[in-house]
């Protein structure tokens, strides 16, 4: 493979503690190396910012519910289509872009790894077909477990070993990456017309509580020693007062310790925390609970979070939290799509407009920024928009602008129709912190990579790591004249390398790279009981046979990268 040397850039790498030093980054055979030969191609990065390729920890970018959004929202593609151009195939879609556009847009912003946050196991094949068709970026997908009948039955009796064996089987057949939990118990309860709004609401028929599900899944996750922690969207999302449920959920991790060989220290990842940090009793007295959530997370080091920033756009919400989407369509009267996935999960889709003229939306915007600004350890808080739920991922440069500039935040606050309400219901007006580029690299590179157990592979620029490198047209030595320059610089990279291949040059795609599908191959002791249970459930309940279930082979996973986990000796 070619050799490259990225010269004289201002390098920010939390993995090595490099804070803007002018350094050269050498690339050889797909890896970062100490030095390259004189024949290496030179990329001049003087006056520019150099970071590792960014890592997306939570986005909905592939699979049946994303595609349902694409199908039932042709208007999302209206005026947002781009024709074939150079290396790029045609693309379209603003909040739910086509697979090709998804890959290109991430790469142009300097992202080289992304996680699909909710894979319905039964439709894993569809998820992988879309991952395959998303160019450039490495991707993994999290199968959902929080409402799965096997899990509910095993954990009701606290059978951790069986749960772990089932998870290992599921990760293998779905080519999954981590244990995702969405509204634990609540989505299953909704099949009975109910919901679980607290961690102690029993799930009908199964007679188990969300607290038992969450604790059990953390235990099973650590029993296996998976790369990522249990990744949770707690109960009671998006309701005023939900921060209490969130705190109750976070407390379930107390005393739990990470067990893995990947350098991960957390046992629970709280996703899109913005949606779970609401105080108040109704939409009238709705206020921010960002302080309560971040105070707790700051003190408890075994938890990582991501933000879920509201970007004030028209978007498409989609989640395995079926009851929430039903609730949402009742609020905004826009079209609702819904699906029940047999023994496993469910999903709903509803378009949503985060209007700067609506006080609730403006307060949500503020909460999403308060959380990262209040977090003391940027290695445990990651920037997301829960794409596309709080906004499209293509708005990351705008979120970065708001986090890096109080002036940009003030401009937005002044543009809100209910500015006074935003200031009285949140503390956004009194936060003068401006994120540094080093902290940005922690929140978008080193941090998420570590939480995902990929800290040795990506998210940093240490020799030996994958050569995922982003070069931004942003000069850290010069004062920022206009915050818009921040957004512009982070929108389109000067250069991006993915595993040593240059994929972006001057903001344009120049190669579709060597995209991989990341999955976790966990080996466990033979467990005839779990295998028999699986066989039985397929015969009795599933609408497809077990033989047709597995996502296997070149069609679905053309370029796999398996992280091996050995849990046989436990």
């Amino acid at each position, binding site marked *: 493979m070619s050799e490259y040397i990225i010269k004289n850039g201002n390098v920010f790498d939390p993995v090595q503690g490099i804070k803007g030093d002018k350094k050269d980054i050498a690339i050889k055979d797909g890896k970062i190396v100490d030095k390259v030969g004189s024949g290496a191609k030179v990329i001049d990065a003087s006056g520019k910012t150099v970071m590792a390729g960014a890592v997306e920890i939570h986005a909905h970018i592939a699979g049946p519910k994303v595609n349902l959004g694409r199908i*039932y*929202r*042709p*208007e*999302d593609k*209206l005026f947002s289509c781009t*024709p074939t151009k150079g290396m790029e195939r045609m693309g379209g879609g603003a909040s739910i872009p086509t697979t090709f556009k998804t890959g290109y847009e991430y790469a142009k912003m300097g992202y080289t790894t992304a996680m699909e946050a909710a894979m319905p196991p039964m439709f894993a094949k569809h998820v992988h077909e879309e991952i395959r068709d998303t160019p450039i970026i490495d991707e993994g997908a999290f199968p959902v477990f929080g409402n799965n009948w096997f899990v509910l039955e095993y954990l009701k009796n606290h059978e951790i070993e069986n749960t772990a064996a089932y998870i290992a089987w599921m990760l293998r057949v779905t080519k999954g990456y981590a244990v995702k939990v969405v509204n634990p118990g609540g989505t299953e309860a909704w099949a009975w017309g109910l919901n679980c709004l607290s961690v102690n609401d029993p799930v009908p028929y199964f007679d188990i509580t969300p607290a038992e599900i969450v604790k059990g899944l953390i235990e099973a996750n650590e029993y296996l020693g998976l790369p990522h922690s249990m990744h949770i969207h707690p109960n009671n999302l998006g309701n005023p007062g939900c921060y209490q449920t969130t705190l109750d959920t976070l407390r379930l991790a107390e005393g739990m310790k990470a067990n893995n060989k990947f350098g991960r220290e957390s046992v629970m990842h709280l996703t899109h925390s913005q949606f779970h940090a609401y105080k108040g009793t109704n939409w009238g007295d709705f206020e921010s609970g960002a302080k309560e959530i971040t105070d707790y997370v700051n003190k408890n080091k075994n938890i990582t979070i991501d933000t879920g920033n509201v970007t004030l756009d028209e978007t498409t919400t989609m989640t395995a939290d079926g009851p929430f989407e039903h609730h949402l369509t009742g609020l905004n*009267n826009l079209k609702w799509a819904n699906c029940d996935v047999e023994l496993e999960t469910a999903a709903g889709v509803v378009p949503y407009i985060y209007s700067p003229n609506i006080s609730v939306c403006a307060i949500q915007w503020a909460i999403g920024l308060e959380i990262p600004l209040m977090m003391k350890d940027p290695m445990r808080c990651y920037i997301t928009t829960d794409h596309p739920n709080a906004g499209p991922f293509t708005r990351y440069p705008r979120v970065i602008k708001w986090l890096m500039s109080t002036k940009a935040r003030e401009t937005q606050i002044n543009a809100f129709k209910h500015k006074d309400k935003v200031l009285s219901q949140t503390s956004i007006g009194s936060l003068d912190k401006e994120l540094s580029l080093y902290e940005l690299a922690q929140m978008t590179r080193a941090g998420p990579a570590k939480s995902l157990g990929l800290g040795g592979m990506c998210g940093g620029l240490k020799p030996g790591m994958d050569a995922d490198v982003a070069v931004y047209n942003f000069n850290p030595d010069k004062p920022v004249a206009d915050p818009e320059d921040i957004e512009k610089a982070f929108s389109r990279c000067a250069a991006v390398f993915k595993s040593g291949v240059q994929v972006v040059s001057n903001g344009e795609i120049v190669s579709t790279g060597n995209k991989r599908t990341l999955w976790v191959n966990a080996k466990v002791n033979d467990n005839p009981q779990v295998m028999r249970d699986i066989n039985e459930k397929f015969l009795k309940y599933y609408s497809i046979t077990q033989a047709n279930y597995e996502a296997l082979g070149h069609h679905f996973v053309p370029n796999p990268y398996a992280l091996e986990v050995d849990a046989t000796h436990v």
Partner: protein
Amino acid sequence: METVTITMKNLPALYLEADTITPDSFAGKTAAQIAELPVYEGNVATTLGKYFEINGGAGATAADTKIIVKGDVRKVKYLGFKMSAGEMVIEGSTDLYVGAWMTGGKILAKGNVEGFAATAMKGGELTIEGNAGNYLGAAYRGDWRGMSGGKILVKGNAGSDVGMYMTGGEIVINGNVDVHLMTHAEGGKTIVKGNTQSKLGGQMVDGTIIIYGSIETMTPGFKPNGEVELEVDGVKGKFAHFIGDMGERHKKKKGAVVYANLYKKI
């Protein structure tokens, strides 16, 4: 006001996507510059001048520009797309999306127009002397934001789904209309001087339909609400009043539930 006349001289083999034929994109340009404006024939990017002979010149602004479209433009789409001001006269019949997303100005189509004319129109005036196709003044596919302002007059007949998801503005049809008139509408007014088919105002939340001719099948979601005298275009008349769609959600205004109104001339 300056006038640009464009005359079709080379008919396209495929349909021409000519969203640049608007006073807004012509404004400030000479005939030669207008000829260079981009259009798509199928998926091939080409220029306006390949198909049209262009005479005259545009005014400095859209408001100062009048476009006269001559010749056979039955295979041309998007005439007057997103126009904000000025005037257009289309002398023959034309294809889809005439005046779609227009916010101002005036379009006079002397022939027939195909479907999706005035999609999501916000303002201005569209007059069609012939017949209109389906989805006149409706929302784009999948969208819930139809015509919200402006005026449409059709001297002939119109197709189905007229005023779907309409929220404001006014449509007058002198002839007949097909099924699904003003379905899902949340405002606005449609007057049909001729006859109508079925499913008028299906899932309609707010807004007004006035029918002078017959209704083939009354929508079951509408219920009789007595008789009223209305003045339409300065002429008074007696109408049967219906409210609906009873199967749909309805807002409350000053404590009273707001329904969509359907008036049928007696």
